[in-house]
């Protein structure tokens, strides 16, 4: 008596009652399907976060004006500009800093070709393309010369292109055209590469970028000595990011003459910290979904156990007969165990297919990122085998310990 014969005996027994087998497997199909779909959605969300930060550059730091505290009134972050353009220049001199770019922004109505659109107008330096790892797909970024001469040139994002020029516009149609921001005409010299969304509803491509000096001269007035925006800093490598971060803090504290016990009047944010925070929240969601999925797998397992127990009772005479004609208790045990493992695994495989189907459908209909890894599939199939074994043990044990005489008499 080898294991293959037992497997064939178990398979024949399952096929003898196809409807019951199918209904039993259904519980597992739903359970495993839920696991696969949930983890595909969770992993997709996580991958999306990683991609977003990857696009920003993982060695990037963000420096902002901090909260001001005057007479007990504490303003929010950036409530009062504290970082001057001289600070910006000084940060650029730090060893670990390879590039830095300020970003000033305001909301503006732009128009071209008789269409108009409300978008974000951002002033920055040519380094911004390097710091944010953001090339042009057509045309060029503005250069230092454009910045120095306060040239009225603009690089526009994909969403602005679509909204002003339509889907079908070619590069030749767009480059060299005039775009008005408020009343000021800009020449379009480049189209920035599409970056997609960062977080829900925040379209990174809905942007018009112009040289920062042009911005300061034409758009913003007022406190000219302060940088009223965000400074993006690129450290020389991922490893030097922390050193750059503390060097910037040290520099700004010195320049702002902040005492030892006083709070910073600026903020330095590390991208990897932010990434970790975002990943953490994605992980929490994944864990939550996995928890729900696990519960449904346990429910599927209980379904299998339930049917197997019913099946043992219903097939008591069959078990008695098998024992009478020479089956040993362990043969009966293994047969029923194999039956429940096969049910669980068939359910598992169909569940993987269902889960992939559901995840793909959700991805395309809801616009969610989906990521199905082979690990997930192995894990799902493996755990369904485990569920089949665990929940099949008790019914199989009961079957193998039946008294053949009683079993044969069972009506």
């Amino acid at each position, binding site marked *: 008596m080898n294991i293959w014969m037992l497997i064939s005996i178990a398979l024949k027994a399952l096929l*003898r009652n196809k409807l019951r087998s199918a209904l039993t497997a259904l519980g597992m199909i739903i359970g495993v399907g839920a696991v696969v779909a949930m983890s595909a959605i969770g992993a997709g969300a996580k991958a999306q976060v990683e991609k977003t930060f990857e696009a920003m550059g993982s060695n990037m730091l963000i420096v902002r004006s901090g909260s001001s505290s005057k007479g007990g009134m504490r303003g929010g972050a950036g409530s009062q500009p504290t970082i001057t353009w001289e600070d910006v220049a000084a940060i650029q001199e730090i060893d670990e800093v390879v590039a830095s770019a300020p970003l000033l922004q305001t909301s503006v109505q732009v128009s071209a070709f008789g269409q108009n659109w409300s978008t974000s107008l951002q002033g920055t330096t040519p380094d911004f393309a390097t710091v944010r790892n953001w090339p042009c797909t057509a045309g060029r970024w503005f250069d230092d010369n454009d910045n120095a001469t306060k040239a009225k040139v603009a690089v526009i994002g994909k969403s602005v292109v679509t909204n002003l020029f339509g889907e079908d516009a070619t590069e030749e149609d767009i480059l060299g055209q005039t775009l008005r921001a408020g009343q000021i005409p800009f020449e379009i010299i480049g189209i920035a590469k599409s970056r997609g969304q960062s977080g829900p509803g925040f379209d990174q491509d809905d942007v018009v970028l112009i040289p920062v000096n042009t911005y300061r001269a034409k758009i913003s007035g007022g406190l000219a000595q302060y940088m009223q925006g965000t400074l993006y800093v690129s450290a020389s490598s991922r490893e030097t990011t922390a050193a750059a971060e503390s060097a910037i803090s040290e520099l700004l504290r010195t320049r702002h003459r902040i005492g030892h016990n006083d709070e910073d009047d600026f903020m330095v944010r590390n991208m990897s910290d932010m990434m970790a925070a975002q990943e953490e929240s994605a992980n929490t969601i994944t864990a939550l979904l996995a928890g729900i999925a696990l519960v449904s797998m346990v429910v599927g397992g209980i379904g299998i156990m339930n049917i197997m127990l019913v099946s043992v009772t219903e097939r008591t005479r069959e078990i008695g007969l*098998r024992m009478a004609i*020479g089956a040993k208790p362990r043969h009966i045990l293994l047969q029923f165990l194999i039956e429940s493992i096969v049910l669980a695994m068939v359910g598992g495989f169909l569940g993987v297919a269902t889960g992939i189907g559901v995840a793909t459908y959700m991805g395309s209909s809801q616009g969610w990122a989906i990521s199905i890894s082979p690990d997930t599939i192995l894990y799902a199939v493996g755990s369904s085998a485990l569920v089949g074994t665990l929940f099949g043990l008790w019914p199989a044990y009961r079957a193998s310990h039946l008294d053949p005489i009683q079993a044969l008499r069972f009506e």
Partner: protein
Amino acid sequence: MALIEIRDLYKIYDSGAIQVNALGGVSLDIQQGEFVVITGPSGSGKSTLMNILGCLDRPTKGQYRLNGQEVARMNPNQLADLRINTIGFVFQNFNLLSRTSAAENVELPLLYAGVPKRERAERVKTALSRVGLAERMDHHPNQLSGGQQQRVAIARALVTRPPLILADEPTGNLDSRTTDEVMDLFDELVADGITIVLVTHEPEIADRAKRVVIVRDGHIKDDRLNKKPAGPSRYIEGV
């Protein structure tokens, strides 16, 4: 050496307050090639005796040697091995697996015996031919008459080539015509040298065996030889 040697066998059911002696000191020898009918009223202990003979149950005390092996002290695994090699069972309600072809039903004991596939197919065919059902190999039990189902069950008992067939009320669910079919088949098997022990409460069946053992209240009341076993004609006249 007798195929079955039973000495002073007891089976006592102890249900707390009362002790029931289902068998109270039974001794019995059955030789190879005998056709023995065990009969008696219900509650006489004949089923208990049958279960012990079939190695499905163990005696409380006493000796039971089957084919030279001492059975009384064997564990369930050893009993299973002994059953598979020595005994073919035939039951009143056939106990065929439903939705399973005659051939697959007959094949079942060979699976547990670990017989290789090709040999299984041959032996299944031989056994089904022996009971005259070679053309119905692929029929399921619900496509067969009661008599045919019992013959499939007999083929299943024969397929392991056991020296002993134990039949527990094998004709209890059959009409008189198919009863004759089955009893004729048993006669043929005895002629081939197979030992048959048949339990029944029907006197007409008992009359057909060479040897009749009557059990009553856990004891053997009578153990006699039929000089002229009744043939099948008796039934045909009686119908």
